[in-house]
């Protein structure tokens, strides 16, 4: 895939990091503010997609990132179900909120919910990015 013009590249270089960090912020504050794992994951995936759209990519790189995203996707899902099963193993109930709840509106509060958000964020970010790769990856364009 070919990249875009110099202006777009320069602006993207400046803001892409902020987009990424904003996605992580939304994910981590999921239990305090609107948003959460899904919204944060979408924003993170947006940053990754922006990078490919603006700077372009080689088929070999895309193959690599496809493998990486599929591993991240599995890890996200496994983290989520691992948290659920941890409740079963530690406290005897599936999906039990077994961690201390903390003080409301603190970043470290609400027990397992922030960790669920992180797992969802990883899963959704990787999932959306892999959908993008499947739909828009170079290999199909070259074949046609």
């Amino acid at each position, binding site marked *: 895939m070919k990249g875009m013009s110099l202006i777009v590249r320069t602006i993207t270089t400046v803001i892409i990091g902020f987009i990424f960090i904003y996605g992580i912020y939304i994910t981590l504050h999921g239990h305090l503010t609107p948003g959460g794992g899904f919204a944060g994951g979408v924003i993170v995936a947006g940053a990754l997609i922006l990078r490919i759209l603006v700077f372009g990519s080689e088929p070999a790189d895309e193959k690599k990132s496809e*493998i990486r995203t*599929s*591993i991240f*996707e*599995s*890890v996200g*899902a*496994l983290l989520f*179900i*691992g948290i*659920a*099963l941890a*409740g*079963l*193993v530690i406290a*005897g*109930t*599936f*999906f*039990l*909120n077994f961690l201390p709840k903390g003080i409301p509106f603190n970043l470290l509060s609400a027990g397992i919910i922030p960790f669920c958000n992180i797992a969802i964020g990883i899963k959704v970010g990787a999932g959306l990015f892999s959908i993008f790769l499947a739909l828009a990856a170079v290999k199909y364009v070259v074949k046609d």
Partner: protein
Amino acid sequence: MTFIPLFFALPLAAAFIIPILGKIAKSIIWIFVTLVSFTLFILALYGVAVTQQFPMIVYEMGNWPPPLGIVMAFDSLSAFMVLVISILVFSGSIFSWRYMSHYTGTWKFYTLYMLITAGMMGVSITGDLFNMFVFLEIAAISSYALVAFGVDAEELEASFKYMVMGEVGGLTFLLSIALLYAKTSTLNLADMANTLQVVGQTPFFWLVLGMMLLAFSIKAAFVPFHSWLPDAHPAAPAPISSLLSGIFIKVLGMYTTARLVFNVFGLSRGNAPVFFNVLIGLGLLSIAFAGITALNQKDYKRLLGYSSVSQVGYIMLGFGIGNFYGVAGAIFYILAHALGKGLLFLTSGSVVNATGTRDITKLAGVGENMSTTAWSFRFGSMSLIGLPPLVGFFAKYFIVLGALKAGFWWLAIVAIGLSVLTLGYLLKIENNVFMKKGRTKANKAPFTMRVAMVFLVVLIVLFGVGFQQIIDFLVGPAANALLRGVEYANLVFGSVGVSF
């Protein structure tokens, strides 16, 4: 620590471990999947044993009590469904090792295989309407991908058609859930059953029920809505065809209908005879129309697909009769058809694997070398037709008995008469493929495939010979769980916190 969430947590976790495993060592994926499905089988047997003592086990997810939180309501019917699912998943996973060896990306296949298992298990044991929808869609979306797994033009077309029709059904179900939620302010099945008693049989009640019946008729492929099935089920790889025809349509279509109609809407033949007559009509239409269409098919798997539509009609017939023998017969038929049709689709996979074609006019002579496949086919079809010592006979016998006890003597005669159609189309395969002398060369089926087929044959014979035990411990309690009606709600609320 309890075993109920493991029924869906285990396959879900396995589904996401497989992609990572696929990067490390491809060869152990199959062993892993088979071990997981065997564990599920053992857990399901344990579940059946436990439900002998406790009629209802309510499991609160995350310790939230029933009307607020999601519960898993595990009763005899759930235990029965889980057992049948795990039998077919286990035999399918054994079968798939050699069958899938000429496909690429098998780890994707096994991931989807575990996801579809998790979805079906979840539908069978959940006690929450929206949770049921989510699991139903997990299973349905995995099945769309599995039907398209070969990515040939034919498979993609079948999958697309299936997806469009399936989603019309799924979204109708979602809409009816939204309407019910607006009316009753609850999604818990037990709580909803209580609230619907207050609502009464108003036009709203019948509208929602009609929408749900439409949705589940599409999922279960009853005749006006069946056209996706004869395309989709043959297009899938054989272990998946076996799973889809054997149990998938029954979990998504029959189990959900029965559970909602009897336990949540609280209908029985006593208080809604017209509705139950509609169910009988749907059943008869499916049996007759699809059975006659099946007689004309030349494609091995497509014929079996039409046969599935036809056989599902018997199950609906049993539920429509609505007394104990009818419902028990319908539940027994779920078991009988799952084993029989699962086995027949596995034999089709074995034949396709050896010859590469599904056209029964080109398969003459296959029976000479593939004797295990041929005899498996014979046992499966004898069970479906309903010959005495096999499981299919007793299932059909109970449905007929139910019809007689309910006073529908004409229905009993029609139901027996229509099984001639089953005999007709299954003999067509027997005649053209396994009996006929011909020049088609085929090697013996691989060892693991034969193991999977013989496993199902043994179960067909065993469940047939021991039908009294099956009725006493498996089917009878399951039928009682349905005929309990809205007592279900009291039982769910009464069993909270029962430890076992």
